[in-house]
């Protein structure tokens, strides 16, 4: 019963794996971490676009939720070709880092919208 010594991946190797399609993810938590940070970046981008457009009303919130869930699901199933049940299913993927990502989106959206309105 010899177990292989586990080597923690550095953030550069994880980023490399995250950006290349069909990478091997022996540790599913690593993939969930990629989804967490990916959602942060996506929130920032969507917040910037919706703020400058400017998108208003609850359509902005609803659109973000849909975009965030669909992108995360497509990234895992289509880009990485990982069975979504291996990482807990659609619900678990949507929930991963949702609170922090939503807060990031709201802060960016509100800040950029305020800037656009005052300019």
């Amino acid at each position, binding site marked *: 019963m010899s177990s292989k010594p*586990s080597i923690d991946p550095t953030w550069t190797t994880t980023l490399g794996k995250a950006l290349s399609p069909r990478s091997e993810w022996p540790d599913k938590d690593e993939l969930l971490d990629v989804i967490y940070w990916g959602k942060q970046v996506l929130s920032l981008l969507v917040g910037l676009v919706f703020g400058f457009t400017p998108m208003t009303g609850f359509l902005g919130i609803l659109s973000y939720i849909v975009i965030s869930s669909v992108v995360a699901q497509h990234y895992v199933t289509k880009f990485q070709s990982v069975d979504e049940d291996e990482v807990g299913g659609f619900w678990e993927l949507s929930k991963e880092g949702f609170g922090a990502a939503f*807060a990031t989106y709201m802060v960016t959206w509100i800040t950029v*919208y305020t800037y656009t*309105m*005052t300019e």
Partner: protein
Amino acid sequence: MDKKTKKLERKKKTIGGGAESVQDKSAKKKLEREEERLKATNRDMSMFKMKSMFAIGLAFTALLSTFNSIFEGRVVAKLPFYPIGFVQGLSHRNLIGDDMTDCSFIFLYILCTMTVRQNLQKMLGFAPSRAMARQQSSPWAPPSSQMNYLR
């Protein structure tokens, strides 16, 4: 903690798939001892975390009162949506006027705290471990009474 829990998970999987033998039983006993040690460490960690959370709570309260004295009654942002009932209480706190899209500092402060705190925790490795959460509700970890026959 996270590394240890993952190591334990892996060991459990290896033993779980193996055949019953004397060697296997001794390995299971060893595993249980390790699990107990991990639980004890987790308890100590929880105490430490509670203290640090208390300190963070105090720091954020102090920060809130400081910001409150600076930005109270000022419109700090314009909301791109019309907030619903209970959100209005926060987003329009201490503001004059009926325009509900005016945003008070407290609403933005809460959002900023949410994003900054969680991202910092994740970045510095203080976020609650997924492996620990799984361990506590894992099918691999039956209640100790069920494992007594192994002892």
